[in-house]
């Protein structure tokens, strides 16, 4: 299952959005990612699930180098992640990330949260950045909150702001790290709706989540991870109807009541 074939000569037209080749990572002595091989095509939506501590967050955090891998290669949009700080910033510019705890900047207003990176990283004029920000805030349906501070918003609203903040950088790839796990049940849907909308527009998405309804609805592939390895990967249909690996079956029986 693990070894996916990497084409020897890479045609730029069909070059994958993300290539992970034989990636390993250790936290001290703990082998947290083992033999990760994954190609993500442009426009592909991938949902990653698995028990806690299985390395799924670590894996997607390696893609924008919030975590460093120690072995193997990660190539994001044609740029290999090495120690070169400048290229890492380049990759981060093109890869948006949404966190479990939002990580909005509490000392800035919603609008400032959204315009900060376009102004400072992309050197966009302030007025233009504000227009872009309002466009995306409208899209996530909270333009009227633009001048409030994050602490004044509900969890679901904050997470939608976080999504808008990432979108303001017009990323090519979006990473979601358990975006709905910290939300009250009533707010999960508004965030998922936003993500579905994004998926329908053809954004390349990697999403760590246990929202299986979301996986069924939008995912092209579902990945199940355990013990730092990719245990099973399949289309959502097959994955839920006919899981192959014993560990997958056990996991699904635990979460689908």
């Amino acid at each position, binding site marked *: 299952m693990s070894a996916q074939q990497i084409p020897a000569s890479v045609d730029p037209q069909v070059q994958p959005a993300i290539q992970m080749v034989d990636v390993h990572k250790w936290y001290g002595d703990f082998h947290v990612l083992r033999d990760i091989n994954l190609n993500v095509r442009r426009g592909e939506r991938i949902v990653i699930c698995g028990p806690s501590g299985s390395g799924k967050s670590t894996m997607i955090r390696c893609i924008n180098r919030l975590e460093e891998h120690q072995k193997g290669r990660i190539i994001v949009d044609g740029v290999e992640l090495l120690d070169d700080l400048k290229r890492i910033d380049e990759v981060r510019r093109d890869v948006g990330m949404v966190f479990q705890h939002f990580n909005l*900047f509490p000392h800035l207003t919603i609008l400032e949260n959204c315009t900060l990176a376009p102004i400072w*990283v992309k050197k966009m004029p302030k007025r233009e950045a504000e227009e872009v920000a309002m466009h995306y805030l409208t899209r996530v349906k909270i333009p009227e909150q633009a001048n409030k501070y994050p*602490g004044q918003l509900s969890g679901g609203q904050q997470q939608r702001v976080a999504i808008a903040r990432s979108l303001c950088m017009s990323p090519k790839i979006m990473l979601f790290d358990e975006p709905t796990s910290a939300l009250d049940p009533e707010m999960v849907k508004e965030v998922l709706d936003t993500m579905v909308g994004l998926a329908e527009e053809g954004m390349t998405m990697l999403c760590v989540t246990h929202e299986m309804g979301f996986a069924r609805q939008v995912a092209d592939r579902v990945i199940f991870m355990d013990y730092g390895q990719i245990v099973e990967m399949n289309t959502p249909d097959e994955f839920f109807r006919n899981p192959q690996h014993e560990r997958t079956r056990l996991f699904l029986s635990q979460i689908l009541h």
Partner: protein
Amino acid sequence: MSTAVDMPRFVRAKQVEALPPPNLARGPIAWVRQNLFSGPFNTILTLVVFYLLYVSVPPLLKFLIIDAVWTGSDRAACRADTGGSESGACWAFIWDKLNYFIYGSYTISERWRVNIFFALLAIGVVWLLWLRAPRRDLGAVYFFWIFPIVSYILLTGGNASFSGRFWAGFAILGALVIALFAFFAALLKTAMRPALIMAGAIVAVIGITLALIDVDFGLAHVPTSLWGGILVTLLVATVGIVVSLPFGILLALGRRSRLPIVRMASVIFIEFVRGVPLITVLIMANTMLPLFLPGDMTVDRLLRPLIGTALFASAYMAEVVRGGLQAMPKGQYEGAMSLGLNYPQMMTLIILPQALRIVIPGIVNTFIGLFKDTSLVAIVGIFDLVKTIEASRIDPNWAAPTIGITGYAFAALFYFIFCFGMSRYSLGVERRLAAGQKR
């Protein structure tokens, strides 16, 4: 509608409207009863405090104001044997010596320059501290660059007359700085152009500064040995505060750096400076600094303790700032990094504004400590306010029993006004910053 607790089923039929809170009895008597005499222990405490106030405040007011001597030109006014009053403070003495307390022995005909310095300082402080002042970015340029240059020229007279050799040395040093920045940019694999621009800007700013100091404006030279009083106290405190905050931030960042050499250097500096008393630092700066420098180079007598106090305060500031950095959740770093912000952007835009806000009480505490510690420069022979009072106290013209107490009361009042001002200002800032972000 009341709800019985043992009802097996319940469906609300009517929404309960929001009502105003019940009107609690509020009046001066209710307040006194609730806050001062709410129980036997509280009542005893209240009575004890009232008694202490009764014992201490009236005599103090009597001494400082009611019985005080306000006019007089020499000791006669404050001595009982010459018909004066000895039971109150001798403010006539302060009034007579006020110029000495403010300027020290600064050349009398040039004291207008000190007054301009005070005015410029006040403008800079208000511009920076008044949060709604216009163009505070320009205010920062003024306060951290223009104001120091102008003050230096005003107070010393400028016209440093650097030699050609000095300028050659500066050119070499400037080139070295630019090369060093380029080297580090290459080492860290960051963009070369901003590094070069930054290095060039630093060299240019220093160069312009030196050139301005070099110009002869026709002002008479006033050696620092003549400076004294409030001028020196404010100067040492301002330089200490202005240097210690940025330098302390750099040290705190250095201490958390991943580069071992930077981290080690910061830790050694902080721990060494914090590990010795300020007096030691001052004496070392005064007597040992000249030993380390080449023979023909001298450091000004006032500059030595100035550097000493600034470095001392920086070490304390570094630890305060580090506390704030420590309190920042990891998610803020990750949020900033995931947007593609580089390290300086992340620090200046996201982390430091929040971290510094957390430690405003600690920062102001350090400032207040520094402000009062400036009186220690007297140890190395600098005539700050306290030292000028000490010197005036033994003036035979003013030999009277209440002179010493009056002098120290004046010093206490001066320090209290500034320290209390800082404290209140910081409280205001905290409240203002917290208001916007709280629910």
